[in-house]
């Protein structure tokens, strides 16, 4: 997904999190991706922790379209209205914000406004956020759903953007040890489940 691309808008928001709806069905970065909730005053960063696709009308549940299709794509092609009748929503848990060029890892003092744009994050901004040692501790102490899975995905995504990973893994391990004292099994589980790809 292209960086800095506006992918949707916030449709529900509170101090810690928001729900956004993507403009296109399924057009949402994967869980663990860091996104930017643009507001005129400041940029607010958040991580995608959950993705849901369902009917635009809560009173109309989808019915199976088959049997009779060999592939799902064929099913979609035969029912072109589907993309108009379904919506993809995703949950964003706030990680930090940037005000006057200073990035702070914390919930934003005021949450973004309803209908604020949500966009993908350019790599330099992602590196900037991950360079803050408070990030891992903040995530670990947050009450986001699927916490460890999100930690695994978020760290994997960041590391996969780097050429060399060994040093960075060490740094994250130290941060996890600091954030999760006496939870060596949990830390081992997180590190072992990182999905790292050679660049």
């Amino acid at each position, binding site marked *: 997904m292209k960086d800095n691309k506006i992918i949707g808008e916030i449709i529900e928001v509170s101090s810690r999190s928001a729900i956004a709806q993507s403009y296109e069905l399924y057009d949402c970065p994967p869980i663990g991706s860091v996104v930017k909730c643009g507001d005129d005053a400041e940029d607010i960063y958040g991580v995608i922790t959950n993705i849901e696709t369902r009917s635009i009308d809560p009173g109309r549940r989808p*019915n199976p379209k088959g049997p009779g299709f060999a592939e799902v794509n064929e099913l979609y092609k035969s029912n072109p*209205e589907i993309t108009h009748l379904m919506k993809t929503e995703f949950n964003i848990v706030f990680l930090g914000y940037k005000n006057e060029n200073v990035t702070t890892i914390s919930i934003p003092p005021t949450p973004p406004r309803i209908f604020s744009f949500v966009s993908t994050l350019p790599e330099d901004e992602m590196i900037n956020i991950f360079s803050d040692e408070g990030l891992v501790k903040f995530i670990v102490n947050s009450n986001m759903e699927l916490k460890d899975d999100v930690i695994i995905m978020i760290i994997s995504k960041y590391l996969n953007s780097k050429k060399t990973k060994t040093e960075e893994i060490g740094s994250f391990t130290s941060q996890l040890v600091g954030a999760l004292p006496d939870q060596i099994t949990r830390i081992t589980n997180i590190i072992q489940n990182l999905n790292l790809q050679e660049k």
Partner: protein
Amino acid sequence: MEIDKTVKYISKLAKQLKNEDSFKSNVMSKLKSDLEGSINFRLENITNEQNDQATYADLFQVNDAAEVLLNNSVFSTDGSTLEADRDLPIEFAAINIGYVNINYGDDPKAEFDSALSFYPDPKIQEIDSRVLSDVNSMSALRHVMEMEYLVDKMETFKTDSIKLGFVDGNFYPNFALSHINNNSLKQLLVKRLKVVAERVMSLAKDNTYIVSYNSSPKSVHITSKMDTKISSDFRDSEIFTELLEDNQRSAVFNETSDDTDEKSLNPISFVYLKNSYEIAKVEFIKNTINKDAMDKIHSLVLSQVQKGNGYPKILIESHEQAVISQSDRKSISVLTERELNANNLKYTTTQKYQSKQSRNI
């Protein structure tokens, strides 16, 4: 409410219906042989596809659909009315027309749209405040608007494949039109229908057709003209359930209407079509659809019914697009109250309305 009493009443009706059903089954079991016995019996005021006097022989004519058409475009409009609220100091009504187009085949895509209109409209003098609370006037107006919007959209849609527009129910709003007391409004609507009918006829020359689809119709157009010994209060759909196999359609029949206003409209033809769920009546303007085109339309209708699990998918979606939901209605009521108050027009709903909302003991 006394539920026991209601259950007893419904049970009595059900038993009565069972007796009627058993009588009907008896008549139906010998329907074909009875019809064959008087094959030249004339169905008065109905003509067949050749414009000749229709007889029982035409009832036996069946047609099959063309093979499945890969590339096709279907269209539909449907409307929803927000009735004028007599409790409000400002009286207005709204009509929302929902539109859907689905294109199948090599370039699959869909378009959803809607158009909202408010009445009274200073540009249409015939629609005054008395019309707003008349169900038949608003229903006929809505039907005319559905057809106009459908034709507007289909005229601008360019594709080489066959295009089929669906109207819900009857092609013309005959019932509602015949119950309008306001003559100038009636004339206006008939005039608008004539214009839209001309446009439908023009579209038909370009592989673009508009039909109406009536699910399990109560029509007795044919049975009312049959020998009373055979028809005995049957609906047309009951006769064709017996005469048609699944996925077959009847011959084309042409209506002649007795109503003066409807008579001035372009005459309507119709076929009965049996899908695997029910009988449907498909109406269209006479001479706009020949047999080849009807074979293709038949195929598209069956495909739409299949996709909609019994009812054309395109009609389901245009209905959904049109609906003014209960929550929309509530919002409009709140907004109206807010606007009135913002303009220092002190307004609250009637005490009767408020008492129904609170329902205190």
